[in-house]
């Protein structure tokens, strides 16, 4: 186990800068997920840590040692690749113990570790098979076995589940979590799938265009997104962003006034008289059908939402609704009986709503634009 620290990392390919001042610290035994859309630089970050790419500027520190100049083989990291990268000419057993052989580990220890890992990953029956004779899930397990069999300081996972089908991905997600709990190795996991990020990480780091947008626990990221990108990237379906105007006592959406109740948190900064144009962010999950919402609390209401489409998902149903000129995605439970074409009144918890600056896209609660009133 080791700590991992990225200090002011910059990476340039020619004149193109793909990573801008990345700072990240991962504690011993922590499971951190790097998440972001394709091309945001998350895999590059991982490759810099592994030593597969040179660092243009900054420092990678593993266990308090700067490893910038160390070759990958001397960094004591284990990496699981997106495309498995199994050695096709070696069987499962040889693939798993290859790293141990390179480290000149004694035969007894090698056998013991192989047995343990094969049992953990349920690979005992496939040890003599070649990668070509395995299914996708089995190959992925071998790739993981190759990493965990070694006593590596850090595990790096580069989108390891992206090539698997949905069912297997779900299964392997739990598997990886279970393995991490068992081995407790510091892990950095890269994915573009926000569900993976939410379910697996002790901490999530959201990246966009080579910049870390936000880092925190999954719930922090989910409940307090720092900007519209994080707000819409994390969570499925993604957060609704409505054009609204913010006044000291209410928010105005499509001519409807939504008043703040006394006890709710409210923007405590100067607002122009004509109102501050904002993006009001509400997650689809936080809407309630007025007919089934309990009275009181900090519930706010949006009236006359016209239902365009209903997608039943079993317990839930997803609705596309129209409020004035704006479209919203709403998730309601199965009690709602409204049909397509009906009009519905929706409630939401004002404490769960976010106000985003329309220019900077930043969350006004986290990044207030004007100094708070004295």
């Amino acid at each position, binding site marked *: 186990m080791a700590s991992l620290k990225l200090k002011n990392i910059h990476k340039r390919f020619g004149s193109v800068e793909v990573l801008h001042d990345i700072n990240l610290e991962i504690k011993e035994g922590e499971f951190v997920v790097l998440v972001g859309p394709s091309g945001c630089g998350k895999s590059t970050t991982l490759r810099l840590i592994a030593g597969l790419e040179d660092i243009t500027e900054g420092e990678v520190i593993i266990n308090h040692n700067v490893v910038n100049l160390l070759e*990958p083989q001397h960094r004591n990291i284990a*990496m699981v*690749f997106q495309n498995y*990268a*199994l*050695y096709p*000419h070696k069987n499962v057993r040889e693939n798993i113990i290859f790293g141990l052989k390179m480290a000149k580990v004694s035969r007894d220890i090698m056998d013991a570790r192989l047995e343990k890992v094969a049992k953990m990953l349920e690979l005992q029956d496939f040890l003599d098979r070649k*990668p070509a004779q395995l299914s996708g899930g089995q190959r992925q397990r071998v790739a993981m076995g190759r990493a965990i069999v070694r006593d590596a300081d850090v595990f790096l996972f580069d989108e390891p589940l992206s090539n698997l089908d949905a069912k297997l991905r779900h299964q392997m997600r739990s598997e990886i979590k279970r393995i991490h709990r068992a081995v407790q190795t510091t892990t950095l996991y890269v994915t573009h799938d926000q569900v993976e990020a939410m379910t697996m990480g002790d901490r999530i780091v959201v990246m966009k265009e080579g910049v870390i947008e936000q880092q925190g626990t999954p719930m922090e990221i989910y409940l307090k997104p720092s900007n519209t990108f994080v707000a819409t990237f994390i969570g499925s379906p993604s957060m609704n962003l409505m054009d609204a105007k913010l006044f000291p006592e209410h928010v105005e959406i499509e001519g409807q006034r939504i008043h703040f109740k006394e006890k709710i948190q409210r923007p405590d900064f100067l607002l122009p008289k004509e109102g501050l144009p904002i993006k009001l962010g509400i997650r689809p999950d936080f809407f309630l059908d007025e007919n089934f919402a309990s009275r009181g609390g900090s519930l706010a209401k949006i009236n006359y939402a016209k239902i365009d489409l209903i997608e039943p998902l079993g317990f839930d149903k997803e609705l596309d609704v129209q409020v004035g000129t704006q479209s919203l995605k709403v998730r309601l439970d199965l009690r709602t009986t409204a049909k397509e074409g009906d009009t519905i009144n929706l409630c939401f918890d004002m404490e769960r709503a976010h106000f985003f600056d329309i220019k900077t896209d930043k969350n006004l609660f986290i990044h207030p634009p004007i100094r708070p009133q004295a």
Partner: protein
Amino acid sequence: MLGKRTLWQNCLLALTLGVVLFFCLFPFIQILSTSLKHQFDWGNPSLIPIKLNLKAYQELLGLGKGAEVPIPETVKRLLDNPLLTKEAKEKILSRYRSTRDVFPFPRFFLNTFLLSVTAAGLSLLLAVFGAYAFSRLRFKGRSVIRRSILFVYMVGGVLLMVPLYQMSVKVGLAGTVWGSLFSLVLIYIIQTLPVSLYMLGNYFRTIPFALEEAAATDGCSRIQALFLIILPLSVPMLITVFVYCFMIAWNEFLFAFVFLKQYHDFHTLPLALQSLFVSKNAIWDRIMAASMLTLSPVILCFVFIMRNLTRGLTEGGVKE
């Protein structure tokens, strides 16, 4: 249905293939046929010998007793000399009993084999490192050098022959047999290296780089990754390249003729065959048998390549 041929198209295809095959195979069949015919049968246009004659092969491979050659009267009188020792008499008689000295096939075969294996082995070794560098390492001028390598073939061998021999003479290599052999090996390497680099380089590029990266994170240095991961995966192409270099060296006549002409004991098979054609021992069955035996390793090599090229070793390693 798409791609379905009519009867006529099938017939035409079969005919074309048949004609091409006939033109390719006929010389080989002719060589084989003549090598198995007796002298009286040589004029017979049939490819099947009236009576099978394996004597030429036995002679060349040293399996037969050796043909008896009539001993001239003068030699007989010499042998009657009581002063001659038994060993001396035997030595004189053996010249008339064996034809092995006339065309020592096993010796020429061994010469050619050793020369070809050395040249092919060295060429392959150099090609492995060169092709790896071209396909994996990033350095200035990489693509220019890679593309210009094949320019070596723009200058024909005949044109290079004189300057190369002159160079070899000037540095003192052509003066000795080992120097000449060294020069030949060097020339064969130069002749085969561009294609070897090209073939191996292209093959290395098909091996996913992720495998090397995985090896690096598993604790391999670059060289270890090359030898433990890349080369085992490239075995079919390594064999192909080796066989290609081997065949070029095996069949090469021009440079061997220039460099080894004066060293009879070190003649290669193409050179020896040429000598056999113009010698007083030019007997058709023996010439053809020698040609057939010379061809056999090449044919074996082709069969071997065909078997190996069909195998894909990188399957299953990475998700495409």
